[in-house]
């Protein structure tokens, strides 16, 4: 990293809180954002729970006439973006709009909207199709709508890379800032939880369900039996350090290094995660120790175990000393959940505490790291290693510092 990149604002619309302060409180107390789904009928499914954002009132962020034209993902993203700009005290106007960019990650973006559009196409035929729904079927609907709503005219992109989607967005934003393509970039992730997504995850047998020990997101616990779907939008403002200093804002922290690599598709995928960690750490000078690992653990057998092996490989002598936890225990998993975790990282650096992995009861001998469980720990955190794991073969690491 030859140009300092800092985090100057965060905006979160999550199942454990809307806005920086609520989200921070939720992390600190180990809030559980997962509850029984009541906005669609879950009786056909074994799983019943999700990390749905409740208490979100789009009218607080978007004019009424526009709301009905926007899919839920776009609404969540606009709200989070407004909160992030406010938090980062960044105003977009005519003179700076082309220097401010936006790079968001999203899995399926406004999938409920796409589903409604396709349902009309299949059941009612062409003449009854609602053309109003089509524009927001594109995966960049949220990014497009945020840029239109907030007047962001700089670099603009949307990315997806399985469960490393938000990490890809953050990394691309860093690269574009270092290359001087923007002064500040809104980045992060947005996903919505819809019935069709729930159905698809059920069909692919990926969701946790109650087998006598409850249905929950419990990363690293021996009894974990799949993910719990979450949703929300988390936007962070990344900025060139010089630009941030010139407008007198105190950053949450800085990006010290990062990497994203593909899997070798051999018998030891944890080796690829280990490679990503080592590449990300090349950027820092020796001696700086990792105070906290933001875990990718998502309550699936495979990812949690793979992460443990990778961390042991990357830190063979001191892995027992580094605290690690997974925020996904509170908010669940989604394709771009890394955005939420990046926002959490910013708060952790600023506030000095380690959020817990909640619902943790039974240790798994294959997941034998220094997990912070059930209660947060107050402690100064100067350096965070953030990992992203996609079982399809993408591994990301982002190193953050105070």
């Amino acid at each position, binding site marked *: 990293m030859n140009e300092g990149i800092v985090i100057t604002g965060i905006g979160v619309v999550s199942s454990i809180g809307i806005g920086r302060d609520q989200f921070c409180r939720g992390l600190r107390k180990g809030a559980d954002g997962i509850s029984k789904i009541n906005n669609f009928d879950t009786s056909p499914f074994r799983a019943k729970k999700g990390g749905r954002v409740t208490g979100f009132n789009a009218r607080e962020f978007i004019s009424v006439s526009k709301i009905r034209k926007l899919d839920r993902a776009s609404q969540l993203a606009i709200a989070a973006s407004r909160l992030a700009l406010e938090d980062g005290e960044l105003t977009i106007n005519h003179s700076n709009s082309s220097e401010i960019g936006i790079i968001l990650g999203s899995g399926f973006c406004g999938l409920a909207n796409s589903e409604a559009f396709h349902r009309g196409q299949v059941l009612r035929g062409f003449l009854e199709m609602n053309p109003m729904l089509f524009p927001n079927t594109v995966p960049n609907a949220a990014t497009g709508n945020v840029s239109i709503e907030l007047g962001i005219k700089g*670099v603009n*992109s949307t990315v*997806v890379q399985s469960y490393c989607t938000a990490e*890809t967005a953050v990394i691309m934003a860093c690269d574009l800032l270092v290359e001087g393509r923007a002064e500040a970039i809104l980045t992060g992730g947005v996903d919505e939880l819809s019935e069709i997504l729930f159905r698809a995850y059920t069909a692919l047998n990926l969701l946790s369900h109650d087998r006598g020990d409850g249905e929950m997101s419990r990363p690293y616990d021996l009894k974990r039996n799949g993910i719990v779907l979450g949703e929300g939008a988390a936007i962070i403002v990344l900025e060139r350090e010089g630009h941030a200093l010139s407008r007198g804002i105190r950053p949450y922290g800085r990006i010290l290094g990062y990497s994203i690599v593909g899997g070798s598709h051999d018998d030891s995928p944890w080796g690829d995660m280990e*490679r990503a960690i080592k590449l990300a750490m090349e950027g820092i000078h020796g001696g700086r120790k990792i105070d906290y690992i933001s875990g990718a653990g998502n309550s699936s057998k495979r990812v949690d175990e793979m992460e443990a092996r990778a961390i042991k490989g990357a830190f063979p002598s001191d892995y027992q000393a580094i605290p690690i936890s997974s925020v996904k225990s509170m908010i669940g998993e989604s394709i771009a959940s890394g955005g939420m975790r990046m926002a959490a990282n910013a708060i952790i650096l600023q506030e000095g505490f380690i959020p817990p992995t909640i619902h943790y009861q039974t240790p798994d001998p294959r997941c034998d790291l220094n997990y912070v469980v059930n209660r947060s720990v107050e402690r100064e955190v100067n350096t965070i290693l953030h990992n992203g794991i996609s079982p*399809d073969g993408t591994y990301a690491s982002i190193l953050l510092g105070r």
Partner: protein
Amino acid sequence: MVITGLGAFTAIGKNVLQFHRSLEEGRAGIDEVTLFEVSKYPSKIAAQIRDYDPSDYFDRNELRRLSRTDQFAIIASREALRNAGIEVNGGAHPEIGVFLGAGAGGMFSAEQYHRDLLLKGRERPRPSLLVPFLPSYSTDAVARRFRLCGPKGTITTACSSSATSIGYSADLIKRGYADVMICGGSDAMSELTFGGFNALRVVDTAPCKPFDARRMGMTLGEGAGILVLEELNRARARGASIHAEFLGYCTIGEAYHMTAPEPSGTEQSRTMREAMREAHIGPDEVDYISAHGTGTPINDRVETLAIKDALGERAYSVPVSSIKSMVGHCLGSAGAIEATAAVLSITRDFIPPTVNYRERDEACDLDYVPGQSRRQRVETVLSNSFAFGGNCTTIVMRKYE
């Protein structure tokens, strides 16, 4: 930064050689859609890839988990790697990354699942149809197939995705994260997209006629275009043949409207100017503009305004053409297929035509290379891609000598 490999899989050619021949001969690949039932739609045509039997390219086991989009991506990537002289047999390649642009991704498979679900009620549709739904699955499929384990990602900005993937891939190499990048994109037709563009009434019922006064809209297409990027010194050291230099790019948001371009063309012009600035070229050095040229009345008018704004007087003496008149609008892969054509125009010194162009529109008063390709020395090309969400990308390439 140089381009050392090309791969193309399109309705006008299933490899770069055929694709190039069709571009030179001005042959379109537009015909009635057979991939799904189209009788109910106003438009019944597209540049669908025909005479394609996946089992010619893949074994049955492999096919079960690959969408049509993934298949095109792998076929074109294989050609591009071979064309670049890069051996990928066996070992893992951490020095090679994959960053593709995507559009509908596995929608064609996922919509079959959804249709079965809606129409057949209780019978359970095949879950495997959902596996390749996420657009990044194509990138994963290419990386897995050739064991490319450098940096990886997927751009999903609709019609500009694959152009942006080329630009950002160049940044990744420049920043030292990879020696070689496989970039570009793939996209297959889906009924959702076909119905959607029909519902928006932006599709021509006859083959599209970009920039023509009679133009009524676009013609959809599908296919893949893949480019191999690497640094000049590395390419030279390994004795690779160099197709062209990649000079720079710009990608911005118009912040105007989800589907309509900013009508004065100011934002599109800014994209082209910024790309030229990064490439250190002036308007007088531009020899050819590969237009976004979708064939909708407003898009072609605004793009023309933007070209005139960005190039000034020079605009009137630069050939501008839209190969969408032959290959259709391939959405997620459009920018990459057009970039591939642009590289061919540089290496073969010709301008691909805008076929079907006959009647001049007063609002579109540039040289659109009607009907037939033109033999002409081509050094520097701009290629434009504009997308839903107000996303604009321009890339710049130049002859390497």
